[in-house]
């Protein structure tokens, strides 16, 4: 499985967890999208550092683009493969959904 496919599956799983499994429905709130816009801005900065300097390097056959490091184009945005944006979206959405879900559950008094 290529990184491209895995990243798309990751986003699908994260969306399903938020909407169907945990029913946190963050995706339906402006609060999530505002927070994600801020996260995305900083992801572009920090991921650009990781990928632009070649701290992380990608195989051409795993991503849409090639292993050539470029600022924009060839499947890359601010040096990072577009797959990284999907990866980051899935990671942060899953975590925030879990955070909200755990927080909404009444905390049971520990038995005994």
């Amino acid at each position, binding site marked *: 499985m*290529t*990184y491209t496919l*895995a990243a798309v599956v*990751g986003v699908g799983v994260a969306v399903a967890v938020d909407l169907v499994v945990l029913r946190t429905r963050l995706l339906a709130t*402006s*609060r*999530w999208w*505002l*927070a994600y816009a*801020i*996260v995305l801005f*900083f992801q572009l900065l*920090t991921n650009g*550092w*990781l990928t632009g*300097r*070649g*701290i*992380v*390097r*990608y*195989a051409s056959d*795993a*991503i849409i683009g090639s292993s050539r490091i470029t600022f924009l184009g060839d499947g890359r945005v601010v040096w990072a493969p577009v797959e990284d944006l999907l990866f*980051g979206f899935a*990671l*942060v959405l*899953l*975590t*925030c959904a*879990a*955070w909200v*879900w*755990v*927080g909404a559950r009444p905390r049971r008094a520990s038995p005994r």
Partner: protein
Amino acid sequence: MPLRHGAYAAMLLFVLAGCLPLHRVYGLSVLRQPRRLALAVLPVAVVFAAWDVAATAAGHWHFDPSQTLAVRVAGLPLEEYAFFVVIPLAGILTYEAVGVALERHRRRAAARS
């Protein structure tokens, strides 16, 4: 050890320096709920770290040894594991700070009307 080895770790410190002040500025209680934080971050982190180990083993990506610390666990630099704690924490702090900011905004709007 050359400074260059800290290039990845520096990025994680940058993220922490940017998001931890949100806790005080917005009066958040995220860090006072360690159990909730662990339950939100760790299961997701384990899944993503497993994905990362598999993808690195499959050759989808690799890490520059000259820009990471020497420690490797299952083929990944230590920073990559820290990534799966630092970034989700930054996401939660941002989400909570936005919640407080929106609530303040709503209250101000209600007070004006």
